[in-house]
């Protein structure tokens, strides 16, 4: 299986920490980064991405707080088995809002509803 790819754009309005977290979360959810996988060291990743150490460290900390990574002392950032928590009503409402915004944006760019539904279905099933 090909290694997941990170794509960082400093010109993007999204902060770099957010870009790293969001992009790392995808292979974590999809399972291409399996439990036990050790992620690149903070220094290595920061050097390769041309960002500050603290940026990568913060991204790893955020993923650890979500339960994806183990940052125990003396070890690298290791992917751990994670029980999916039951989302609260408030969280579900937040996701629905974000999806509505995204779908509206896609509709505004001319993507038909059937295509949007098919894309969402394919993504959701692919992640499962």
């Amino acid at each position, binding site marked *: 299986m090909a*290694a997941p790819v990170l794509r960082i754009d400093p010109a993007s309005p999204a902060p770099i920490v957010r870009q790293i977290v969001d992009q790392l979360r995808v292979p974590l959810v999809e399972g291409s980064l399996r439990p036990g996988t050790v992620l690149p060291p903070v220094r*290595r990743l920061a050097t390769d991405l*041309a960002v500050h150490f603290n940026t990568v460290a913060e991204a790893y900390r955020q993923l650890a707080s979500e339960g994806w990574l183990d940052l125990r002392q003396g070890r690298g950032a290791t992917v751990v088995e994670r029980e999916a928590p039951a989302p609260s009503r408030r969280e579900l409402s937040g996701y629905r809002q974000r999806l509505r915004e995204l779908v509206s944006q896609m509709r505004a760019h001319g993507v038909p509803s059937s295509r949007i539904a098919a894309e969402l279905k394919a993504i959701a099933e692919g992640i499962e």
Partner: protein
Amino acid sequence: MNVLLSIVSLLFLFAVPSSGGANLFFGVPVPPGFRSTEVARRALRSYLLLCAIPWVASLLALTFLRNLLVFRVASQLAFVVVAVAGYIVQNRRLKPYAVQPPLVRELDLSPPERLPWFTWLGIPPLLWLAGIALCLRLRWDRLPARFPVYIPPEGPEQWADRTARWVYGGLLLGGEQAALLFGIVLAVWYGSRRSESMRKPAMLVMLAGEWLVALNLGAIRFSLATGIAIPSLAVQLVPLLLVIPAVVYFSVAFYKPRDPLDPTPGECWKGGIVYYNPNDAALFVRRRDAIGFTFNLANRWSWAIFGGSLAVLASMLVV
């Protein structure tokens, strides 16, 4: 000889504006075809003229004031300072025409590469110097009271007494320089980007330099310790046989079709020569003014390497 060196240095400075690669001109990323524009030609003319004037002055100083060391050194120094200043001026003038390379970075999360096997070639020179020092210590009483410390091809020239300073000084100096170069080899591996294709060639050049230093500074003490004379020609030629192929390999690798320009932000390059970016974790980045790497001066390890280099220079003065 001095005139020849002067001519070589002038040719080198003439080549500098374009030596960063096809898409760099005076350290500024430029669009294809920019070099044939009037702006580029004017910049090059100004720079060459600026270099040529102090060069002629330094040549005159070398010819007519050869006995006045101060004038000779000052003229050479002025030549280099003016050339660097000219480069910086043209870099600033051309900045408005710069094309910012895309800053987007893509990186696969494959496991980090292992340290290349040839890195360990940096250990034997250190062991060689340490071994000679140990051998000298064990055979101290049998060492001659006076021994040559510098052997030019035509025979011994400078002699020294059997004191700790003269017996071990050269080895200490060699050990410091070799350790510094080996440290830089490791720093290049760990402190430059994985996508940087010049990493391994640069490491090989540094390792060849380390062998050169160790063989040169250890040869006389080796003869002193073991009684086995190493021909002076071998002392000078063998290390060069290591360094020249490494430099050629590095240059060939550099002028192969290049990777896309390292997407370092243009505003972090000062005068096209100095890179200072506190938001970049890299210690070494590809130079924009010439072949090779330069430090990211915002990385504190760069100052540690400068400190090490200064310590070696100070040792040279003391030893």
